[in-house]
């Protein structure tokens, strides 16, 4: 299943947030969206996920939802959004319960996603007992459990320290290598974007328009820390983004 954004635009009252965004999200690819603070990245992602209605334009689903997919468009939140009163296992169960899968299948899915995110030993832990990185892995496991057609990730690593972020990026790449998933990945971290994105969409400052789409052909698994080719892409992106970021910063000050 592919997604197509057809000239999306949106305003909150008089404030225009997004203007004329057209974008293809092909199956099995990770599309990163970067842009200065407040340019409407999260808003765009909410629209893709059907949590908000775009003022203009439409979001189209091309092709059928694959078999066995319980929740086609699935979020991974920046602040994890785990239920603190449920264990790791319980948090994953939560999203399966409404589907009436039967105990055996539910158990199989939980065991599988916990193994894939290396959490099998922490099934019974409560969120308060585990670290930030693990919490995000639980959120990831929960997203994988519903076998999504497209994962929508809003700065999933922003709440983590840089070492944990590095580790989790590795985990994401490994997960993708094992079974390519489709994802829209919002971030303001250029390094994450060049490590994880097959294509990187750079939005301008508010109102957000597409400034540039940068494709990176290096396979995800070969993108290592400090790869010169990636460094070059990152510098290129930063130069494009710099002026926007400065302008956006000034704008916020003058509000």
């Amino acid at each position, binding site marked *: 299943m592919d997604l197509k954004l057809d000239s999306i635009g949106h305003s909150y009252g008089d404030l225009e947030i997004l203007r004329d965004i057209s974008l293809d999200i092909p199956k099995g690819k990770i599309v990163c969206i970067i842009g200065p603070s407040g340019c409407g990245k999260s808003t765009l992602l909410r629209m893709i996920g059907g949590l908000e209605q775009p003022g203009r334009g439409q979001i189209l689903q091309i092709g059928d939802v694959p078999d066995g997919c319980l929740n086609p468009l699935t979020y991974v939140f920046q602040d994890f959004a785990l239920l603190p009163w449920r264990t790791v296992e319980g948090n994953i169960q939560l*999203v399966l319960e409404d589907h009436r899968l039967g105990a055996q299948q539910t158990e199989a899915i939980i065991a599988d996603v916990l193994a894939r995110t290396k959490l099998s030993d922490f099934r019974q832990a409560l969120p308060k007992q585990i670290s930030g990185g693990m919490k995000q892995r639980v959120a990831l496991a*929960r997203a994988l459990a519903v076998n999504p057609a497209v994962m929508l990730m809003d700065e999933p690593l922003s709440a983590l320290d840089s070492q944990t972020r590095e580790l989790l990026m590795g985990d994401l790449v490994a997960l993708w290598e094992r079974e390519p998933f489709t994802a829209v990945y919002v971030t303001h971290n250029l390094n994450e974007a060049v490590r994880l994105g097959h294509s990187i969409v750079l939005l301008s400052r508010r109102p957000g328009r597409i400034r540039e789409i940068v494709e990176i052909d290096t396979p995800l698994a070969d993108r290592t820390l400090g790869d010169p080719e990636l460094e070059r892409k990152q510098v290129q992106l930063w130069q494009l983004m710099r002026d926007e970021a400065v302008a956006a910063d000034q704008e916020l000050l003058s509000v």
Partner: protein
Amino acid sequence: MSDTSRSSAPTSSYKPVAFRGGGFAPRPHRWVGLGVFVSLILIVEVLTRAGIITSLTLPIPSDVFWTLVELWQSGMFYKHMVPSLTRLVVGALIGCTVGVSVGILIGLFSLARAGLVPLVAAIFPIPKIALLPLFVIWFGIDEMSKYALIAFGTFTPTVVATYGAVDNVDRTLIRMGQSFSLSWVSIVRKIVLPGAMPGILSGLRISLAIAIILLVAAEMLGAEYGIGAYILQAGSLYDLERLFAGVAILSVLGVMVSTLIGTLERILLKWRV
């Protein structure tokens, strides 16, 4: 030279940084509460026995204790306690159940909120005791009017605490539920209710204390037996020992209710950081 000045000069002013980060974190101190009770009672005991406090002002605590023992031995304790506890449990159960349900309705539906919040605000400050005659007319002099008074009195604080608690449930968790296409019922049952539980429980703490206050008020009218009736009889005879014995029973009841809620919190809110 710079070396010596660096190592020697400041030595005289080496000071550990003062710690100023403590407090503001309640820790359990098991026996302190009991200690405060016991020492207060001991002080009163000594002062009354020494005659510094006359027995007209305060009864001697040990006399109160013997009155309690006597009450127990005569079997009258049960006679008073059973109807009182029944009234408390039935009244508070009705009031809190309806209160929690209405509070959740207000929390979930804006129409219910618009319609009921002003009503609750209007009912809240009415001293329910003042309405006692009205309840007697409506529900008769029997048990029903007592249940009604307690239920009515616990209802409003429970409603207010509950809808406040529902309002405070983390919205991102609800968004998360929606993003996984959970059904409305699932979101309410598995996200909103557990999320509101801390607030609901602390509301119950207040409501149940109010229920005990109203219990005594309810027993002022046409109750032969009950802790409230017992206190009232003692009061009209200026029998301070029995008055205080009744008050002590109410206090113990209050502590027990509070402990009960505390236990409930420990079990239900294990997940809290």
